[in-house]
C-alpha cells in the first residue's frame, strides 16, 4: 500500500473539508463509546480480565521464540504447513506461490489487516489472480478502490447513499429501477453476489486473531460469517498472521476473548469465534484440503526488548480509535497507511519508520482516553511521546517546530523569565479575545482557529495559583 503518512497535514485539511466524511464519522462518536461502556459495566471482572490479558501477552512476548516453535510443531502435526516470512514481500510471494501451486484463479478473503499491511490484493492481481473481499465493509471499499479507514469497521467513512451508488454502478446485471432505500436490501444484494463467489473460489485467505501454541490452532473472530465461508468452502485455506498473535493456551485465548468484543463493539462475544486446526480430517465431509499459515515478522521481532514491545500486545479491537478525538475528527485515511488512530500512531513508525510517519505520534492531544480503554493496557500516549522524542533527536521535525520547542525550552529553564512572559502574555491574550473569552483568530495559530476558537486564559497563572496555595491563601 502506498504510504501517504508524510502528507498527513494535507490529508487532514482534506478530511476536515469533506462533508460526507464528517457526516459518517458522527457514527463513530455516537455508537462505539456507549456500547463499550455498557458491556464493560455489566461484567464485574472486566478490569481484572484486562490485567490478566496484559499479563498473558507479556508472558507470551517474553517467550515468543519458544511459543512460536511449539505452535509450529502442533500445526505440522495436524497436517498444516507453516511458512515463515521475514518481510511483506516474502509473505506476498508465499501466498501467491501457494495459489499458483493449485492453479487458483479466484481468492476469497476474510477481513484481515495483515493482508492490507503486505498489500496482498494488488500483488494477487498483478499475478493474474482475482481477490474478492467478502466482509461487507471490505467488499464496499474494494468496489470503491479504497483501503479500510478503521481496523474493525473498514467502511465507517462511507454513507448509505454512497453504498447504494456503488452497488448500482457495479451490479449492472440487476434491474436499474430496484429499490435500495432500506439498508437490509443492500445487505441481501451483497449476500447473494458473494454467496456465489464463496462457492467458486479456489483459495480462501483469512487473518487470525490468535494463534494458539497449545494446539496449533488459528482463531478468527467475526460477526458476519464471511470468514467461515472463506475458510470452509475453497480447497485451500491460507492464514496470514503476524508473530505476536501467539497465545500459549486455549484458556489464555478465553481470557482475551472476554475483553476483545466488549472493547471493540460492546458485544459480550462476537457471533462467530472459530478455531481452525489443520486441514480436513479423514472423517470430515467438508473443510479445506490444505491448510497453510504464513507467519509474518515484518519488523516485529526487532520491537521486542525495546520501548515499543508493549505495542505487540495489541489485539486490534479498535477501542483506541473509537475513543480518539483526533480520529473522530479526521477519520482513518488521513493517517496515510494501514493502521489509523492511536495504535497506528505508535505501530506505523515501528513498521515503516518515523521518518515517514512522524506526523502520526504528533497527532494527539495526549488526552489519554486511548490508554484508559485499551483492553491490553498499552501505554499508547507514553509510546507516542517516545516517538516524538526520537523524531526530535534525529532532527526529523520541521524547523518551525524545533524553533518553537527551543524557545519554549529556553523559557522553561529560566523560571523568572518564564513567569514574566506569562504575566505579560496572558492579559494580552485576554484583551485580544475581548468579552467572549474566545479567540476566533490569532497570529501564528491559524491552523487551530480555522476550525474552532481558542479559549483565552483566565485568572492567574498556574505558578501564581500554586504559590498562593502553598501559602494557604484561598484562590
Amino acid at each position: 500500500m502506498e504510504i501517504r503518512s508524510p502528507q498527513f497535514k494535507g490529508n487532514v485539511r482534506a478530511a476536515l473539508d469533506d462533508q460526507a466524511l464528517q457526516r459518517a464519522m458522527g457514527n463513530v462518536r455516537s455508537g462505539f463509546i456507549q456500547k463499550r461502556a455498557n458491556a464493560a459495566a455489566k461484567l464485574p471482572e472486566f478490569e481484572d480480565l484486562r490485567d490478566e490479558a496484559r499479563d498473558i501477552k507479556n508472558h507470551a512476548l517474553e517467550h515468543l521464540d519458544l511459543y512460536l516453535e511449539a505452535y509450529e510443531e502442533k500445526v505440522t502435526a495436524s497436517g498444516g504447513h507453516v511458512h515463515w516470512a521475514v518481510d511483506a514481500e516474502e509473505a506476498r510471494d508465499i501466498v501467491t506461490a501457494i495459489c499458483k501451486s493449485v492453479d487458483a484463479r479466484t481468492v476469497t478473503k476474510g477481513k484481515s489487516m495483515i493482508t492490507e499491511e503486505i498489500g496482498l490484493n494488488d500483488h494477487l492481481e498483478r499475478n493474474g489472480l482475482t481477490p474478492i473481499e467478502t466482509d461487507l465493509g471490505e467488499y464496499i471499499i474494494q468496489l470503491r478502490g479504497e483501503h479500510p479507514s478503521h481496523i474493525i469497521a473498514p467502511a465507517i467513512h462511507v454513507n448509505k447513499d454512497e453504498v447504494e451508488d456503488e452497488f448500482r454502478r457495479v451490479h449492472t446485471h440487476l434491474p436499474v429501477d430496484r429499490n435500495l432505500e432500506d439498508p437490509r436490501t443492500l445487505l441481501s444484494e451483497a449476500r447473494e453476489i458473494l454467496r456465489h463467489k464463496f462457492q467458486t473460489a479456489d483459495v480462501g485467505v483469512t487473518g487470525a486473531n490468535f494463534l494458539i501454541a497449545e494446539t496449533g490452532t488459528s482463531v478468527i473472530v467475526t460477526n458476519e460469517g464471511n470468514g467461515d465461508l472463506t475458510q470452509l468452502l475453497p480447497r485451500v485455506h491460507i492464514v496470514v498472521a503476524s508473530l505476536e498473535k501467539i497465545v500459549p493456551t486455549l484458556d489464555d485465548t478465553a481470557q482475551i476473548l472476554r475483553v476483545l468484543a466488549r472493547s471493540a463493539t460492546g458485544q459480550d462475544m462476537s457471533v462467530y469465534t472459530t478455531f481452525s486446526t489443520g486441514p480436513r480430517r479423514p472423517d470430515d465431509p467438508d473443510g479445506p484440503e490444505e491448510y497453510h499459515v504464513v507467519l509474518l515478522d515484518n519488523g516485529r521481532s526487532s520491537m521486542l526488548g525495546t520501548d515499543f514491545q508493549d505495542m505487540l500486545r495489541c489485539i486490534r479491537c479498535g477501542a483506541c480509535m473509537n475513543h480518539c478525538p483526533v480520529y473522530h475528527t479526521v477519520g482513518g485515511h488521513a493517517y496515510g497507511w494501514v493502521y489509523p488512530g492511536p495504535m497506528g500512531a505508535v505501530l506505523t513508525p515501528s513498521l515503516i519508520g518515523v521518518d515517514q510517519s512522524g506526523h502520526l505520534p504528533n497527532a494527539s492531544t495526549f488526552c489519554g482516553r486511548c490508554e484508559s480503554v485499551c483492553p491490553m493496557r498499552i501505554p499508547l500516549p507514553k509510546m507516542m511521546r517516545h516517538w516524538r522524542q526520537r523524531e526530535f533527536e534525529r532532527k526529523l521535525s520541521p524547523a518551525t517546530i524545533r524553533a518553537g520547542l527551543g524557545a519554549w525550552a529556553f523559557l522553561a529553564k529560566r523560571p523568572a523569565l518564564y513567569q514574566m512572559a506569562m504575566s505579560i502574555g496572558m492579559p494580552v491574550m485576554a484583551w485580544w479575545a475581548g468579552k467572549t473569552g474566545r479567540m476566533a483568530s490569532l497570529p501564528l495559530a491559524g491552523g487551530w482557529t480555522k476550525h474552532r476558537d481558542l479559549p483565552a486564559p483566565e485568572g492567574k497563572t498556574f505558578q501564581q495559583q500554586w504559590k498562593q496555595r502553598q501559602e494557604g491563601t484561598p484562590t
Partner: protein
Amino acid sequence: MTDILDPAKNAERRNTVLATARRSLKVDGDEAPRRAAVADRLASHPAGVVPARGQLDTKGRVDLFETMAKAVDATLARVAATADVPGEVSDFLRQNNLPQQIRHGSDARLEKIPWESQKTLEVSTGIAEDATTVGVSHAFGGVAESGTLILTSGDDNPTTLNFLPETHIALIDAKDIDGDYESVIQRLRDHYGAGEMPRTVNMVTGPSRSADIEQTLLLGAHGPRRLHIVIVGA
C-alpha cells in the same frame, strides 16, 4: 516463484526470524528456566479470571444460557426429551413459514430422534447443499455466560450446516451447558485429548449480523439469518 515454498528456504527464513527475536530478547533459546516456564504453561493451562456470572447450578446455567442467547437474537425452546424434538422443530418451521425440510449429519443423537413422528417433515443427511434451507446440528456444548454454542466439525456435524443454510437449528443437551468457556475447553481436552482439537470448533453467539453500513445492526449477513436453539432435557 514456487522456489519460495522450498522447505530449505523456509528453514532459513525461520532461523532469521527466531534469531532476531532472540537477539532482541537477549536470550539464546536454550535457557532451562524459560523452556520450563513455557512447557509448564502449556501443560497446566492456568484458568485465570473466570467470571462469577456463570457459576451456577444446572438449572441456573440453563436459565442464564437462555437469557443470553435471546439477548443476541437467537430464538430458543426447551423440550423434556428427545421424542419432543421433531414436534418442536416442525412447529418452528411452520411459524416461520419455512418448508418442512431439514438436513443433518451422522451424529448418533440426531439419528436416534424419531423424526418420522412428524409426517410432513422431510429429513436428509449430509453436508449443506445449495438447496438446503435448514441445517440441524447437535452442539458439543454451550456456555451460559454469553449464550454461546460450541460446535465441532466431523461427519457427525458437518461445519457447512452451521453456515450455509438460511436457518440453523442447534440441539443441545441441558447437561452440556457449562457456566464458562474454561469448563467447555476442559471437556474438549477430555474428549479429543490434551493438545488436540477437531479441525474446526465454532463458538456461535446468535445469528449472523453486520453493522458495516452506517453502524446500523442488520441480521443475516453471510451466515444464517435465524438461529434456533433447542435445549433437550430441561
